[in-house]
C-alpha cells in the first residue's frame, strides 16, 4: 500500500476511535524523543529512546551492558522520563506503557516495578532514595518504594484472568483535571513540586508515610501564563529554591516555601538580544517558543532548550543583595542536532544535549532518511566571572583529555549509544505511518497546548446550545 494511503486509513481509524471514546483526546500521540540522565557520582550516562535504555561510561565508551539479559531494560512502549536517585543506587525509567521500573545501578537488575493508571509523565526520587514519585496524564502523583514492591495484586489478576500485574502506586495527590508535566523534590528533601498544564505549580510536603498520601499543600507558585513544562532545583545557592519554565517562554525563580516569585527571565526576548546583528539567526528566532527541557549545574548555571530552536541557552543565577537573579549568558548551537530534546550536566559540569539530527519537514514527500539520536557535549571554559566571556564551548576532538584521564571522543560515545538506537529510527517511521507526527518541530509540547476557541466559534457554540435551541 502506498504510504499516503496507509496514513489516510490510520487517520480514519483514529478518528473513528476518537468519536467512540471521548477521552481519546487526552491520550495525545507524541513521537519518541531521547531522554538523558547522568549518574550523580560515577561516570555513567543513561540514554533512553523509544522503548529501551542504554547506559554508557563516557570515559571508556563501554556500554554498561547488563550481564543478565539486556531486554530487561526494556519497556513495551516509549520511555518519557529517566532519573538517577541522589545516592546513585537506582535508575528509574517510565513512560507510555504506564510502568515505572526501578533498576539497581550495581547490577542493572530491576528492583521494583510499579504501575500507573495512566501514561507516566515524570518521576522524582525522595531525598533518601527510598521512594520514587511518579506523575501521570490524569494529573495524579503516586509513590512507590524503590527496593521492592509488594507482591502483584493477585485479587485483580485472578478476576481478570490475566497474568499478575505490578501493583499500583500509592496515590499521593492530584492536580484536578490537568496533566502533570514535571515533578522534583527540593534539595532539602522537604517538598515535592509538581507542575501542570494549567500554569500551576504545586508545592506539597513530602509525607512521612507516602503510602498514606500527601495531604498537606505548602504553597502554589503562580505566575506562568501558559503551561509549565519543566522544573529544576538549583544546587548550592543557599536557600531552597525552585526554577520553572514553560509555554510562555520564561524561566522563573521561586521560593517554594511560600510560593513567592523571585525573578522572571523572558527567554525569547533575551535570546534575540544575544543574536543581535546576526541577521541570519534572527530570522529563525523562536518568537515565543515553549521551553522543552531545563537542567541545573554547579555555579548557578542553568541550561535550557526551546522548542523549534537548535540551540542550548545558558543562564546563570547571579547573587544580588541577599537574593539571586537570572542572567542570560550564552547561546550555543548544538550542531549537528536539529531538534534538541533533553539536557543534563555531568560530573565535570559538561553539558550534554540529546536530540534528533535529521528532521523531516512535512512538505517532503520522499523518505529522506529517518532521524537519528545524536549527542552534543559542551565543556566549561573555566570562565565564571566576566559577563562577556562565554561560559561553555563545544567539545571538540582537541579537548579530549581532562586532567590526565583519556577521554573518549564524544562522537565515539555518541556512536556507541546511538548505535543501540539504530533500529529504533525505523520505529519512528512506522509510527508516522500510523498517522502520528514524527520529526521537527519535535511535538513534545503538542499535547500541552490548549485548543484555542475563537470569539466567533464561541458565539456559534453558544447559539447552538441545546438549551437555547429549545427555547426558540
Amino acid at each position, binding site marked *: 500500500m502506498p504510504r499516503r494511503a496507509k496514513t489516510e486509513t490510520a487517520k480514519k481509524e483514529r478518528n473513528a476511535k476518537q468519536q467512540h471514546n471521548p477521552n481519546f483526546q487526552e491520550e495525545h500521540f507524541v513521537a519518541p524523543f531521547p531522554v538523558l540522565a547522568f549518574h550523580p557520582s560515577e561516570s555513567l550516562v543513561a540514554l533512553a529512546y523509544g522503548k529501551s535504555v542504554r547506559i554508557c561510561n563516557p570515559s571508556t565508551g563501554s556500554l554498561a551492558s547488563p550481564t543478565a539479559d539486556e531486554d530487561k531494560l526494556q519497556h513495551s512502549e516509549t520511555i518519557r522520563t529517566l532519573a538517577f536517585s541522589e545516592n546513585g543506587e537506582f535508575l528509574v525509567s517510565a513512560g507510555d506503557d504506564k510502568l515505572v521500573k526501578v533498576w539497581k545501578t550495581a547490577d542493572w537488575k530491576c528492583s521494583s516495578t510499579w504501575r500507573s493508571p495512566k501514561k507516566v509523565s515524570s518521576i522524582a526520587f525522595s531525598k533518601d532514595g527510598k521512594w520514587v514519585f511518579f506523575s501521570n496524564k490524569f494529573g495524579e502523583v503516586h509513590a512507590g518504594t524503590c527496593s521492592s514492591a509488594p507482591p502483584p495484586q493477585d485479587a485483580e489478576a485472578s478476576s481478570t484472568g490475566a497474568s499478575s500485574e505490578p501493583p499500583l502506586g500509592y496515590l499521593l495527590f492530584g492536580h484536578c483535571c490537568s496533566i502533570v508535566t514535571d515533578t522534583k523534590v527540593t534539595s532539602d528533601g522537604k517538598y515535592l513540586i509538581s507542575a501542570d498544564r494549567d500554569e500551576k505549580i504545586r508545592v506539597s*510536603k513530602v509525607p512521612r508515610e507516602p503510602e498514606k498520601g500527601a495531604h498537606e499543600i505548602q504553597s502554589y507558585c503562580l*505566575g506562568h*501564563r501558559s503551561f509549565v513544562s519543566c522544573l529544576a532545583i538549583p544546587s548550592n545557592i543557599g536557600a531552597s529554591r525552585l526554577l520553572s519554565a514553560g509555554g510562555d517562554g520564561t524561566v522563573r525563580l521561586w521560593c517554594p516555601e511560600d510560593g513567592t516569585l523571585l525573578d522572571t527571565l523572558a527567554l525569547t526576548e533575551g535570546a534575540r538580544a544575544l543574536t543581535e546583528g546576526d541577521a541570519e539567526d534572527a530570522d529563525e528566532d523562536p518568537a515565543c517558543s515553549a521551553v522543552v527541557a531545563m537542567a541545573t549545574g554547579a555555579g548557578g548555571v542553568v541550561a535550557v532548550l526551546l522548542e523549534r530552536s537548535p540551540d542550548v541557552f545558558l543562564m546563570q543565577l547571579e547573587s544580588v543583595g541577599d537574593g539571586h537573579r537570572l542572567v542570560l549568558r550564552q547561546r550555543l548551537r548544538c550542531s549537528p542536532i536539529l531538534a534538541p530534546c533533553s539536557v543534563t550536566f555531568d560530573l565535570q559540569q559538561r553539558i550534554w544535549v540529546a536530540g534528533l539530527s535529521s528532521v523531516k519537514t512535512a512538505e517532503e514527500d520522499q523518505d529522506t532518511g529517518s532521524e537519528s539520536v545524536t549527542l552534543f557535549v559542551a565543556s566549561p571554559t573555566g570562565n565564571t566571572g566576566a559577563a562577556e566571556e562565554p561560559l561553555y564551548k563545544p567539545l571538540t576532538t582537541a579537548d579530549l583529555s581532562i586532567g590526565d584521564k583519556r577521554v573518549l571522543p564524544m562522537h565515539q560515545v555518541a556512536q556507541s549509544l546511538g548505535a543501540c538506537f539504530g533500529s529504533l529510527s525505523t520505529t519512528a517511521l512506522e509510527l508516522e505511518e500510523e498517522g502520528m507526527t514524527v520529526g521537527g518541530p519535535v511535538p513534545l509540547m503538542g499535547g500541552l497546548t490548549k485548543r484555542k476557541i475563537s470569539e466567533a466559534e464561541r458565539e456559534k457554540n453558544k447559539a447552538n446550545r441545546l438549551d437555547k435551541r429549545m427555547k426558540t
Partner: protein
Amino acid sequence: MGREKRAASAMDAPDRDPSHRQSDGMPQKRFYRARAHSNPLNDCQFPVPVSPVEQDWAEHFPAFFPSDPSVAPLADDAKVRMVDVGCGFGGLLMQLSPLFPKDLMVGMELRDKVSEYVKERILASRKNHPGEFENVSCLRTNAMKYLPNYFEKGQLTKLFFLFPDPHFKAANHRRRIVTRTLLAEYAHFLQVGGTLYTVTDVPELGDWMSEACDNHPLFERLTQEELDVDPCIPLLTTATEEGQKVARNEGVRCMNVFRRISPEGL
C-alpha cells in the same frame, strides 16, 4: 493560554436585557436557564486571574473597596472568607449575607447563565435594600480547578457544598467535587478551625463525601453540640433552590460537617 490579564468584571453581564427583570428589578430565573450540567473536567473558556494578587475584588465589593478615597469602606482589610462552591441560583449567599455582614463571601458557579443570574440578583437586591448584600458576589469559574488562582493559604473560614452534582456513574466519580484529592486543596485554603459543610439528598453521595472527609487527616467531624449552635446549619437545607426542592419532595438530607484541623507529624 489565551487568558486575559484581568479577570472579567464581575458585573459584566453581556445580555442585561431589561425585559428579563421583574418590576422590582429582580432577574427572572426562567431567562437564565442553562443545561443541567457542565462538565467540570473540560478546559475553561473564561478568564481566570493568574494569581490571587491579580484578582480585582473591588469590582465585586465596591462598598468595601470604594474608589473614592473620602468614602469609608464598610470594613477595613476585608477579604473573602466564605465560599459557596457550586452556588447555583445563590439562595445560600442571600441568607448568609446578613449573618456575617463584615465577611466577604462569593459563590463559585460553573454555568455562565446561572452565574449571570446570581450577579443580577445581587445587584437588584443591593438596589432594593441599600447598604445590604454588599458583602456577597459570584464568580463564574471552575472551583475544582481554580481555587489557587483566587485565594491564599488559610484565607477561608467556611466552605459550602450544598447539593453538589451526584455524578452517579463510576466513570464520572472523578467529576465529583468532594474527593480525597480535592480535600487537600480545601484544607489548604481553609484556616485551621474553619468549617467545611456538605449536604446532599443522594445517600450514595452522602456516604462518599462523609467517608472522604472522615478519612482525611486534616478534617474532623463536628459534634452534635457544635452543630446545634452553628447558625449556618439551618440554612444548609432551607436556603438554596435545590434544598427547597428537596424539602418540597420530602427527600432525605444527608448532612456532614467537618472542621479543618492541623495534626502533628504528617
